[in-house]
């Protein structure tokens, strides 16, 4: 039994990728859940908001690179992030003004807002394609690895290597900072408390003199920032392709619902739950098992589900939650 090697393989192929992916999903799900909490609809345009923000970040990154500005070992995209956030915030605020506000004032059924968000999704999808096209882009620069496989082998003398890509570490660090800042904002500042009050009970919040339009604007700006950061981290980690951001919508929704729509803490837990299940279910465990139980020769790869079905995992989680606990793990809203 070789626990050490098994652990290295597990960390390398399951834990680290899943943690990075989970952080990206959590940031995305936070945006969805905040919009649900305040505006009370599931925003189908969130994936394309992420794509739009990332596209702007990529364009600014290219601009900075052509000017010779880089961040050394860190990706230049970090420097471009504020521009992306600003552009996305302007876009979503304009969208809110032009589209959603009308239905909000009219108090239309939530499903009409969902449908409007589908229209917005189309437009944003087109805008992203217009901005950057449909091809696949890699825009990470700087140091590729913090720990690379060969160095790790040399240090430890183990046959199995461990790689920690800088984008993965960066994802986790940025996610922790962003989440900490968000929770500080929601729990400690006056505006954040106003947002939570509005989310808990709209009428009571209005009676206490909270300006609903201001709360809504704040929500959109935060959602746009979260979407851009999540999208950029996802793009840095994997690569940017507009269509992938539409597909990531399902895991993000699953994460938000698992945690309980409207609950920020739930969105984070849901993001990691979905990511870890997805990676664990689609990973071929044969190598890990080989180290733990050397005598045992499994017939196949010990893979529960092919990687092409990774979206099925989030779907199954979604179904299980809907069947047994529709309000989610953290008791979100049950409108």
């Amino acid at each position, binding site marked *: 039994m070789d626990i050490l090697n098994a652990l290295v393989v597990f960390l390398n192929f399951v834990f680290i990728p899943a943690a990075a992916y989970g952080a990206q999903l959590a940031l995305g799900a936070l945006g969805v859940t905040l919009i649900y909490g305040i505006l009370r*609809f*599931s925003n*189908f345009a969130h994936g394309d908001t992420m794509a739009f923000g990332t596209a702007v970040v990529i364009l600014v990154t290219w601009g900075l690179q052509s000017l010779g500005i880089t961040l050394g070992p860190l990706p230049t995209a970090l420097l471009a992030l504020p521009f992306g956030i600003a552009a996305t915030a302007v876009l979503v605020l304009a969208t809110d003004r032009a*589209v959603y506000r*009308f239905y909000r004032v*009219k108090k*239309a*059924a*939530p*499903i*009409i807002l*969902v*449908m*409007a968000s*589908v*229209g*917005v*999704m*189309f*437009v*944003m*999808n*087109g*805008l992203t*394609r*217009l901005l950057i*096209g*449909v091809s696949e882009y890699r825009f990470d620069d700087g140091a590729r690895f913090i720990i690379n496989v060969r160095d790790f082998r040399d240090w430890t003398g183990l046959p199995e290597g461990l790689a920690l890509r800088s984008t993965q570490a960066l994802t986790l660090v940025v996610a922790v900072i962003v989440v900490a800042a968000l929770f500080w904002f929601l729990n400690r500042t006056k505006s954040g408390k106003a947002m939570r009050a509005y989310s808990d009970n709209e009428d009571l919040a209005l009676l206490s003199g909270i300006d609903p339009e201001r709360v809504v604007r704040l929500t959109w700006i935060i959602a746009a920032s979260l979407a851009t950061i999540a999208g950029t981290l996802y793009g840095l980690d994997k690569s940017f392709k507009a269509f992938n951001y*539409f*597909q990531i*919508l*399902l895991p993000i*929704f*699953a994460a938000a*619902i698992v945690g309980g729509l409207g609950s920020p803490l739930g969105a984070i837990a849901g993001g990691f739950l979905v990511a870890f299940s997805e990676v664990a279910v689609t990973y071929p465990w044969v190598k890990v098992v080989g180290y733990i139980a050397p005598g045992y020769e499994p017939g*196949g790869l010990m893979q*529960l589900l*092919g990687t*092409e*079905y990774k*979206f*099925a995992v*989030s*779907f199954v989680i*979604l*179904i299980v939650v*809907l*069947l047994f606990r*529709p309000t989610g793990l953290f008791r979100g809203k*049950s*409108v």
Partner: protein
Amino acid sequence: MSNTRQSAGYSAWRAPVLFAILAILFVLEGTVRNSMFSGSWNTSLAILNMGLLSAITALGVNMQWGYAGLFNVGVVGFLALGGLAPVLVSLPPVEGAWQAGGSRLLAALAVGVGVLAIAKMVWTRTRSGLAITAILIAGFVAYRYLFDPAVIAIEANNPSRHGNIGGLGLPVLLSWLVGGLFAAVAAWAIGKVALGLRSDYLAIATLGIGEIIVAVMKNEDWLARGVKNITSIPRPVAYEVDLQNNSDFIGFAQSWGFQAAEASGIWVKLSYMTLFLVLLLVLILLAELALKSPWGRMMRAIRDNETAAEAMGKDVTRRHLQVFILGSAVIGIAGAMMVTLDGLLTPTSYNPLRYTFLIWVMVIVGGSGNNWGAVLGAVTIWFLWIKVEVWGPALIGLLTAAMPDGPMKLHLLDSAPHMRFIAMGLVLLLVLRFAPRGLLPEK
């Protein structure tokens, strides 16, 4: 959707006039050759046929949305599932596939369904999470034990030409019904879970099932060869080649002033059109009869005020499930027809933007709740969707004609295809806001 800006009543001439305008557009497409129209009846009829299929799909979506207010975001999945039916029903059987692993495969699927049913039964009796987990894990192992060797055997059977389970060799028209049945079963499963909860949940759940059905069709080679595609699906109408070799037909074509090659294409498309029209009219008739019946009144009552309907003793969730299944079945039928029309099944072509959201634009533009509106919206939007591909670049070329040549102009010219998405999104948003009842409002 109360307080809308449109007046409730509209002229009785509105529908005929709009349909007439649409017909004129198709005639122009068939006869006038300029920068806007192709002047080819083959093109015109091809657009019309696909438009009619979109109309049937839109009819299904309209049942779910217009009758019951259910937002189905997985239209692409139900269409794809319907498209599986012609392959499994009407393709000739693949030699050796059933002997290789057919019975084992069926046993695996039966075990899969059986385990789920047992788990459900045990859950209702005992409410024990532990027992359910044990049953599901044991069931999964048993399923994989049966399933994996069967799939390997079937896919190893003449993989360059087949490698799939093959069809039953039954008539292709029958497969349309089977396509509807497939979609209905999927709709039942998904509706059982997601209906009765918050309205967004159905949207999200259907988004998921849509993606998964397409993923299954791309990756399960034993089913329909996955991305290797299935070609030469049998046709319910004549083949062009046979027509061109038929001296009677050549004479008939010449009497109308057409070449045999062109005429055979038109003839085939006209035959399809007749088939599609008949089916569309039958479906509309049934839908209209249902809508005017007590059942239809109940559905609309539920849609307009669920609480009140529930207070009157209507089982809202059950009715929703019913109409969701019916609508999905219609979508499945359209999916089977689509594959039959193309003669091939290409799972990679099932793109949600094209097959889910475009259909939604059709329903909303046409007038949700009105079957004729769905048809009008579908054919109109489909015509525009195809023509914008031609008109868009021409328009941008015209707009940028004054610009100096350079990367900006090049970029704008290249990006014309993406304008389609922006245009469709804007159409959806504008109609939703300014004319939420659509071109032909519900009466």
